[in-house]
C-alpha cells in the first residue's frame, strides 16, 4: 500500500522537538526527519523540475533548516511546509533557467521511461521507483504534480489546493483525470483492456 499521511506518525512531535532543541539528540532527530522526507521530495522534484531536482532539494533543506526553530505544527503541516518550499524553489529555478537556458543531461536513464521501454517489458510488479516517476512524468504537468503531492507527499486535497493555489475541486478533478490517463497509458503499453 502506498505510504500516505503520517509517515513518522507518533514519533514526529518528539523528533521535531529534539531537532529544534539543539541538544545532543538534535542531529539524530534531524537525520530521521530528513531520511523520511527527502526521498519523497526528490521524487516530486524529479517530475516538476527534472533538470535540477537534487539541487533544489538541497536548497529546500537549507531553507528548512533556517526556519526549523520557528516551525510549529504536526507532521502534515511539516510536509506541507517542506513541499511548499520545494515548489517555490523549483519555480525560481525555472525562471532562472528560462533567462539562462542550460543544456542538461536527462535525470533518468533511457530505459526508465515508458516511451523508451518495450511495452512487453513493462512489468508492473517489478516497476522501479524511477520507472514509476517516468510514467507520472508522461502526464500533463499539473495532473502529475497533484498526484505526487497526494500520493508521495501524503497531503490531502485541501492542503494540495492551498499549495498549488487552486481550488480543491480543480485539484481533485486534475488528480482524477491524471489517474484515468495513467490507466489508459498502462493499458496501451501492456496491451490490455
Amino acid at each position: 500500500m502506498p505510504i500516505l499521511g503520517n509517515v513518522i506518525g507518533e514519533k514526529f512531535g518528539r523528533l521535531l522537538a529534539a531537532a529544534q532543541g539543539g541538544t545532543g539528540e538534535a542531529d539524530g532527530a534531524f537525520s530521521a526527519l530528513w531520511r523520511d522526507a527527502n526521498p519523497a521530495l526528490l521524487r516530486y522534484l524529479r517530475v516538476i523540475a527534472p533538470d535540477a531536482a537534487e539541487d533544489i532539494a538541497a536548497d529546500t533543506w537549507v531553507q528548512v533548516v533556517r526556519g526549523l526553530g520557528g516551525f510549529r505544527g504536526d507532521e502534515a503541516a511539516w510536509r506541507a511546509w517542506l513541499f511548499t518550499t520545494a515548489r517555490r524553489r523549483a519555480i525560481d529555478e525555472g525562471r532562472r533557467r528560462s533567462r539562462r537556458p542550460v543544456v542538461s543531461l536527462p535525470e533518468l536513464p533511457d530505459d526508465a521511461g515508458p516511451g523508451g521501454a518495450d511495452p512487453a517489458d513493462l512489468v508492473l510488479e517489478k516497476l522501479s521507483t524511477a520507472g514509476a516517476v517516468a510514467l507520472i512524468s508522461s502526464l500533463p504537468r499539473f495532473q502529475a504534480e497533484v498526484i505526487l503531492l497526494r500520493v508521495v507527499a501524503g497531503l490531502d486535497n485541501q492542503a494540495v489546493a492551498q499549495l498549488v493555489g487552486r481550488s480543491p475541486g480543480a485539484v481533485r478533478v486534475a488528480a482524477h483525470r491524471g489517474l484515468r490517463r495513467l490507466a489508459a497509458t498502462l493499458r496501451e503499453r501492456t496491451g490490455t483492456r
Partner: protein
Amino acid sequence: MTRREPRGEQSSRPDRPSEERSLEALLEGSPLPGGDRARWQPVSQVLTALTSVPESNELSGEARALAEFRARPLHGAAPARAGHRGRVTWLRRVTRPHGPRPAVTVATGAVLIGGLLAVAYAGDLPSAAQRLAHNTIDAPAAGRGASAGPDPAGSSRLGIPAGQASSPSGHGSARPDHRTPHGSASGSPRHHRPSSSPSGPAGSRPSAHRKPGHSPVPGSLRPGSSGPGSSGPGSSGPGSSGPGSPDPSGSPTDSPSPVPTQQPSPSASLAPSPGATPSPSAAASATGQSRHHRNPDPAGTSSSPP
C-alpha cells in the same frame, strides 16, 4: 460541491460515483472497492512503486543536509517562510534601505544613552538633570555624588539612593564588602540574587548561599568581628573563602547593622553579637532560592502551522 454531468454522457458513465470513490481510494492509499480492483490494479501498482522504500541515491545528500543543520544558529533564528530568495532580498532591502546608516545611528544613540546613564549614576549631571534622573531612574540625588554614602556604587547599581543602603549590593558586587566579614545574608537579604552571587568577587556575597545554621550575623558584622559562625575563610558560604574574601576590618563608618532599608529585616533588630543566629527571613531569603533557579523551557510546544 455540485457536479454537472455533461449532457449525453450521463448514460455512458453510470458508474461515475463508484469510479470517483476508486480514484480517491487510490490517492489515499485505501483499499479499492471490490468491483474496481481489477480495473485499477495497474495504477495502484504504479502508485505503490512511487512510494516504495528509499533508494540509495535518494539518501546520498544526508551529510550535506546535516552539515547545514549543524551550522545553523541555535537561538534567535527567525522562522522561515516558504518563500524564495526574492523575498529574502526584499526583506534585506527593506531593513537596510540606506546601508549602514541606521545601524550607525542606533549604535551612536546607544553609546550616548549609556554615557548619560553612567554620568547620572555617578551623580555628575547638572543639578536639575540629576534631580530628574533621581526621580526617574533612581540615580543618586542631586548633590550626592558617587562619593556620597557608604556604598554609592553598589547602592546605585541597585537603584538605592546613596546613603540609604548601608549594605553592599546584593548582586555579588565587585566591591569588597568591608562591612560584612561574612558577606551578609544579614546585610541585605533582599538583595540576594543567588544565581548571580555565588562566589561573588571580593567576597561580596558569601552569605547569599549560607545554609541555615551558619550564621550570617546581622549586627555582628562589625569591622573585625568574627564570632562563631562569622566568616572566617571558608566558613559560611561560597565566596567567603575564596580570594578576595571580605575584609573583616570593614569601614569604620559602616553601620553595624547593615540592613537594607527597602525591606525591613528582622536582622536589623538583632543586637550585634557574635554567634547570633541569623534571622529566618535573612536565612530563607539568602538560601531559599539560591539553588533552584530554572530557565524556562525554551522548547516550543505551540502548534500553529507556518
